[in-house]
């Protein structure tokens, strides 16, 4: 473009640009421009486009308003997915938080020089890409060669159809999610535990507090903020989970383990009904909005305290 312009004009334009660039705020804006373009084009625009898409018919030719949503509300599978998504996310997050909280205390209790080793070992589930580790779980749950069942049979328990029975399948996807996510909580809580001043525990001990009172009156209040942030954050991620359910059960048996993401994938990409898929994924919005609101509030409060 610039090459076709006469030389003087180019120079003048460059001079103008340079003068503009020398202004701090202009340069600041230019530096953030790549970020703004990326987010606007590939996050904000698709998010809004998704709302429009959800109001088209299957062949994307006609605007049908809320007909897709109405159609979803009449389907039992939809309500099952809503229920399963909530059960999946809430149960998984609660157990992740509990296990993370307990294990972080165990790590915190051992002598400092051993902590690094334990922490390093216990974070491994979080480091392995979930698609890969879920394959390992899939093989552990294999109907005919399940290594868990081998143990169960040896100790006299009945073999379990891990992914074939709806209840066990629901249990299995939650189990794998907890296994994958608990280390994240462990690391966050361990970092938070380290920041609780030792004097508080000493003061509590002098006042005769037992271990339970120390946790309830010292640890929990000191960690309240970080617990809130990790739980809300994990709630979003777990609610939007795709990998684990997709690989373990692909939604089956008979759609019993579908969550929003996997069902949207099945309807939209595999079934070729993009608007309906967009509808399903949009149902993640409300919970995301609520969680995001609380996270932002907590983070701002944290910023003000500091």
């Amino acid at each position, binding site marked *: 473009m610039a090459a076709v312009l006469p030389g003087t004009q180019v120079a003048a334009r460059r001079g103008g640009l340079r003068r503009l660039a020398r202004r701090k705020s202009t*340069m*600041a804006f230019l*530096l*953030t421009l*790549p*970020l*703004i373009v*990326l*987010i606007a084009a*590939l996050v*904000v625009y*698709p998010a809004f*486009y*998704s709302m429009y*898409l959800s109001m088209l018919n299957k062949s994307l030719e006609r605007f049908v308003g809320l007909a897709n949503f109405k159609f979803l509300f009449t389907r039992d599978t939809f309500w099952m997915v809503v229920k399963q998504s909530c059960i999946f996310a809430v149960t998984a997050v609660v157990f992740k938080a509990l*296990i993370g909280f307990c*294990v972080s205390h*165990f*790590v915190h209790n*051992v002598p400092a020089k051993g902590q*690094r080793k*334990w922490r*390093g*070992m*216990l974070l*491994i*589930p979080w*480091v392995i*890409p979930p698609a*890969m*580790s879920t*394959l*390992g*779980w899939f*093989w552990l749950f294999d109907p005919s*060669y399940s*290594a868990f069942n*081998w143990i169960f049979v040896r100790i006299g328990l009945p073999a379990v159809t891990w992914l074939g029975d709806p209840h066990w399948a629901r249990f299995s996807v939650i189990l794998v999610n907890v*296994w994958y996510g608990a280390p994240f909580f462990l690391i*966050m809580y361990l*970092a938070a535990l380290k920041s609780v001043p030792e004097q508080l525990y000493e003061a509590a001990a002098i006042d005769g507090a037992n*271990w339970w009172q120390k946790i309830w009156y010292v640890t929990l209040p000191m960690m309240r903020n*970080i617990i809130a*942030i990790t739980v809300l954050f994990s709630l979003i*991620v777990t609610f*939007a989970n795709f*990998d684990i359910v*997709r690989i373990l059960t692909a939604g089956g048996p008979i759609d019993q383990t579908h969550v*929003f993401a996997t069902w*949207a*994938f099945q309807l*939209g*990409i595999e079934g070729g009904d*993009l608007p309906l898929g*967009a509808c399903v*994924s949009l149902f*993640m919005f409300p919970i*995301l909005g609520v969680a*995001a609101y609380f996270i*932002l509030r907590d983070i701002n409060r944290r910023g003000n305290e500091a």
Partner: protein
Amino acid sequence: VKAKSLRRERRWALIWSYVFLVFFAVIFLTPPLYMLITSLKTSAEISAVTLPWWVFHPTLENYYALFTSEAYLTFFRNSAVVSLCVVAITMVISILAAFSLSRMKFWGSATLATGVFLTYLIPETLLFIPLFKIFAFVQDWTGIELMNHWWVLIVIFPTLTVPFCTWIMIGYFASIPKELDEAALIDGASYFQVLTRVFLPVALPGVIAATIFAFTVSWADFLYPMAFTTSIDQLVLPAGIVTTLIKGDVFNWGQIMTAALLGAAPPLIIYAFLMDYYIAGLTAGATKG
């Protein structure tokens, strides 16, 4: 008496801590270890009804088969190229933006910083369907075929990495004392020099943490490759292993486990060497707000 009982209490707490730590370590490490065990077995040993938790005739034939499998090497190459490009793009975009947002105020910069964090909370599962359609009409308008090409992941993965990396870089940059860059400016440094000579060296741990994050996220992502790439030569590792090895008629579990383990190796190796940076990056998001 009191001191003695206190000491005894401490010792019991320690013993119980170790007991539970061993218990949880066993649970946490069972799947990867079982993957390793299976990867060392022949198909015959896997299907034989013997002790599944032990390898009686260890063999590397699964590893050999994968290293000579053209499809698997293609997945690996695609993953490596995509991840490295995404890391480079992410770091350029987020360091420039974080530099600007942490030091220079302009109209809307505070809102933008919050907005960056909000976009981090928007999951990919909300965006893959509209993106699918958007790719289709980008092709109609420009003739560029985005669908079913591995490089399209280089374009969209930054949406997963840039917001968080920018966010933690803002945190690291904001903790650098203002006097440092003011001194450099007075000495005649340009903004670019302030960034490369002052900010980047001082915030190096943050840069490393963000780089690790960007790499692991783009290496591990599963949904976008599943939605946007289908041909065998266009797949990256997670999608490739799941769609080609699993969907075959005969499950070759030894090879699947080997493939998954090797696919998990790059993040694990990075983690083994840079654990402290990895953890710093992980906790930075919540503690540096």
